[in-house]
């Protein structure tokens, strides 16, 4: 039992630590990002590019680069993948809860169903103090952002509205 608790706390620690590294993937200062709300805006906080251009820039990240390997290592150390969750399943809503809510309304129905399934399965696994068999863990390469682009879009729309109202 004692080892088990130890395991969980290690996993939680890792979860937090790696989240911080993964979400702040493009920032130079992960610690400050961890305390700010901006990590949820990781796409928009960069240079504003059209969505396809952003995607291309992301894909262009060299798979042999040190940064890529480090990010992958962090990802593989995290707990959520062992529960079969994906990165976008564990976005901490915080003050952006309305944006996440709106984004969830917009995503295709099959994505929403899959997300709900993963979250329910993860809760069940967590309650049973167990994890999925290793071959079912989420893979870093397969974990595409299905929700984040929608959140970005919602936030961009709201920012625009705010700008029009204050101008």
């Amino acid at each position, binding site marked *: 039992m004692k080892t088990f608790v130890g395991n969980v706390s290690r996993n939680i620690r890792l979860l937090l630590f790696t989240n911080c590294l993964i979400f702040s993937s493009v920032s130079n200062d992960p610690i400050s990002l961890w305390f700010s709300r901006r990590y949820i805006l990781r796409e928009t906080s960069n240079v504003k590019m059209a969505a396809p251009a952003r995607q291309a820039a992301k894909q262009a990240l060299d798979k042999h680069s040190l940064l890529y390997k480090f990010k992958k290592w962090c990802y593989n150390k995290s707990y959520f993948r062992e529960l079969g969750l994906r990165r976008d399943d564990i976005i901490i809503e915080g003050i952006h809860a309305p944006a996440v809510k709106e984004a969830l*309304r917009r995503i295709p129905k099959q994505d929403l169903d899959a997300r709900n399934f993963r979250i329910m399965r993860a809760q069940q696994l967590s309650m049973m103090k167990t994890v999925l068999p290793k071959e079912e863990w989420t893979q870093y390469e397969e974990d595409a952002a299905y929700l984040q682009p929608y959140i970005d879009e919602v936030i961009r*729309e709201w920012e625009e509205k705010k700008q029009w109202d204050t101008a």
Partner: protein
Amino acid sequence: MATGLTRPLARSLKGRMFSAAAQPEARASTSTDSEPKCYIKKLNNGMLVGTIETPSPLTRLAVVANAGSRFESAENLGVSHFLRQAARLRTENLSQVGITRSSLQLGSDVTCMGTRENIFYKSNVTRNCVGTMVEILQELTTRQVFKPWEVSDLQTSPDALPLDLAVFKTQPFLHCVELLHSAAFRDTLGRSLYAPDHMLGKYNPAQITQYVKSNFSTGRLALVGVGICHEELEELASGFEPYASAGSPIEKAFYHSGELRHNTGGDLSYVAVAYGGPSQADKDLLPAEILKHVLGVGPHIKYSLGTATSQLAKAVSQSTDHPFAVSSLTANYSDGGLFGFTAVAPVSQAEKVVRAAANQLKTVLSNGVSDADVNRAKTQLKAEMCMQFENPDILLNWLGEQTLYSDQILTPDEIYKLVDNVTTADVNAVAKKISSSKPSMAATGNTGNVPYLDRIFS
């Protein structure tokens, strides 16, 4: 100050100033100088451009797409109505808020209006902001992105499509004309301007995008302007990128005749009866319009029956003492048309009114009209057109249709001349031709007492 010194000085000056100048000859201004000039051009990118140059400080702009309800199919029935609403949806570069707020910022507006053949995206803007406004119109017509959630919101939100349909249901007269088209043309021009209830919630982005790509295409999209320099408008239009033409043949409209009745109850009956009429390109168009004015287009004096000038009203007023409304009706499209009348009467009088009006229509069409009637109708027609061309919005519709369907633009003056040249013999010939087609009929409201088509024309 008039001292002995200044007086001669002033006198010498006075001799050289304006008071001594000869009165300039008044500049001869001919009427053609002040006449608006019309231009039409087809650009290399497939855009059609039509301009009427007037000195107005306000420019009326419209992008006209040849994408009205006649181009729909059974799968996407009513999609042109959806597109009228979709004019406020986000585009590639503009969000919903962006469209509204940036046009407000220019002191402008954007409206979308549809006919059976065309969809008009219109805007009124001051001359100095034309460029920005054309960009917005370009976004709306060539760079649509139909986001799934916006498309579904538009079909469920109570201030979008459902509102339009609810308003439409309170207008039995409109409903009657829709039914008449449906009875007369079945498909093509018979497709309603309004989306049917059962399609609400069934429009999806793929289907709409497909419709837009095949109809907002090269050669079927026009930029027209009233009150703008034609070179400027042509330059702005050259920036457009209409979708590549699908090249699918356009379904020809064919007049079938038929009868449709939709009993919605109430105290009144709404009836429309029509024969096949001339198309817009037909040389019979103007004689038919004159014939319409002989039959009468409703009272010109408020609360009167209009019996002085309307042959239909004269005949109907002899058959009933109750209030009624009767007016002749024409509808002309690029390849088909309708000619007939509409009538509204209390249920108890519906039969009498419809029979009297239909008999009068038959009589006028077969017996012909007199010179006096034709002359009066010509004057009425010209006056009506003058009044309509005063409204730049109508002028814009007229310009848009001509830009899409013909290679020259008729000015109002040319039309008045054409009207003058119509003779009584022309009108009578057209009347004969119209009466040779089979009649169609539509009725709504309380149809309990409305006679059937075969009984009226037996």
